[in-house]
């Protein structure tokens, strides 16, 4: 009960907040730009000084199959939380798919170190509480860049904390040392992801004239694409502008 109540408290808070800030098409709704820009400067420094070099060292030193197993382990333990969201979205076929994946990888895949599900085409249906809220009719609200977590928006930023605190069965069941292995593997997965998307991340952060504005655009457009909530005016009609 204690765990269930806050979800709705947070959900209604998100709805109140997002009702105050209507979506404005291609132009980012960014009333917190000053604050966001300082988070961005902090995040960029963190990437430049810690994440990026550490990711390089990690992927250079650790053999690829080990890297993959570390990431598989982390990803597998995030599946129960995704199943919870699939159910909240009444998407039972994805819930079944993610459950089957979790069962197979946790057993045949040796506690999730390997990914036999992938080989039989049982791919993950990724989701989160932000998508659940979207399904419940919550608009994305103002743009946010969160310290440590990076680009987000009111809805998905709050949803992220709901996912971590309340919708993560593995986090509530696991005890040390397994919970510690999990935390370590999550860091490993992050370092591997930083390496895989290295060229794109570097381009946005270090190759653009205004990395804050560019990462805001990249986040908003790819998130809307992911959640299929693209409005007609999200993209520019260049001919209409010069008619």
């Amino acid at each position, binding site marked *: 009960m204690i765990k269930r109540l806050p979800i709705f408290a947070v959900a209604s808070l998100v709805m109140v907040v997002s009702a105050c800030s209507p979506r404005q098409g*291609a132009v980012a709704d960014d009333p917190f730009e000053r604050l966001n820009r300082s988070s961005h400067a902090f995040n960029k420094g963190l990437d430049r000084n810690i994440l990026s070099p550490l990711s390089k060292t990690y992927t250079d030193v650790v053999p690829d199959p080990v890297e993959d197993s570390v990431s598989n382990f982390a990803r597998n333990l995030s599946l129960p939380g995704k199943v919870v969201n699939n159910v909240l979205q009444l998407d039972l076929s994805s819930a079944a798919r993610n459950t089957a994946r979790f069962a197979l990888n946790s057993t045949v895949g040796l506690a999730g170190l390997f990914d036999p599900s992938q080989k039989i085409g049982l791919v993950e249906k990724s989701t989160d509480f932000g998508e659940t809220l979207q399904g419940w009719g919550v608009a994305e609200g103002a743009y946010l860049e969160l310290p440590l977590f990076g680009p987000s928006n009111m809805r998905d930023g709050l949803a992220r904390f709901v996912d971590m605190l309340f919708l993560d069965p593995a986090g509530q069941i696991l005890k040390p040392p397994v919970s510690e292995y999990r935390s370590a593997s999550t860091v490993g997965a992050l370092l591997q992801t930083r390496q895989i998307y290295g*060229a794109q991340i570097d381009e946005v952060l270090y190759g*653009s*004239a*205004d990395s804050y*504005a*560019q990462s805001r*655009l*990249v986040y908003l*457009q*790819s*998130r*809307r*694409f*992911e959640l299929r909530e*693209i409005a007609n005016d999200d*993209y*520019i*009609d*260049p*001919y*209409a*502008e*010069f008619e």
Partner: protein
Amino acid sequence: MIISTPMPNLNKTNLARRTILTGLVSCALAGPVFALDKRVATQLIDRLVGEINAAIDSGMSETKLIGRFERIFADYADVNIIARAALGPAARSAEPAELEAYVAAFRGYIARKYGKRFHEFVGGKIIVTGTNDRGKFFEVMAVTELRGSAPFDVSFRVSDRSGQNLFFDIIIEGISLLSSERVEIGALLDARKGNIATLTRDLADLG
């Protein structure tokens, strides 16, 4: 009746001559002049994708690839409108000569930038999957097939509003080239206090 008999003949020859001439001129200038519909839009992007695939498959150096991309962009993209839209409101108040020089510099910049990006695709290819009629334009959908990486969605927005059938935006996993360039060019222009001439000069070293 008597005078009207030779008239149609005269008109017919005139009309035929004009049709042939127009046909020749438009072939020479614009290439295909088919009215834009779903099929024509798909064929255009099929040819474009064929050229991109051939270019990334050719094993040519990055420098040569960029030159090839500049030609591909010139043939298939409405670089003129992309450049203007990227400049945003400043394009309205710019002097015509200033704008022309900027568009010319933008051509090289965009080819270098995306030529480099497509160079990362070496060993992969793009496959056209379908076309949607979106009212004022057609959206041709495609997916990439890359080694060691999950496929991703690419779409090309095609319009004939320039007088030719050309694409005006590429959207990769939801991220629009046009939107991204408007942010980039806008930031570059701001950093130069709105001076288009300085921006034009600096674009030569960017991308």
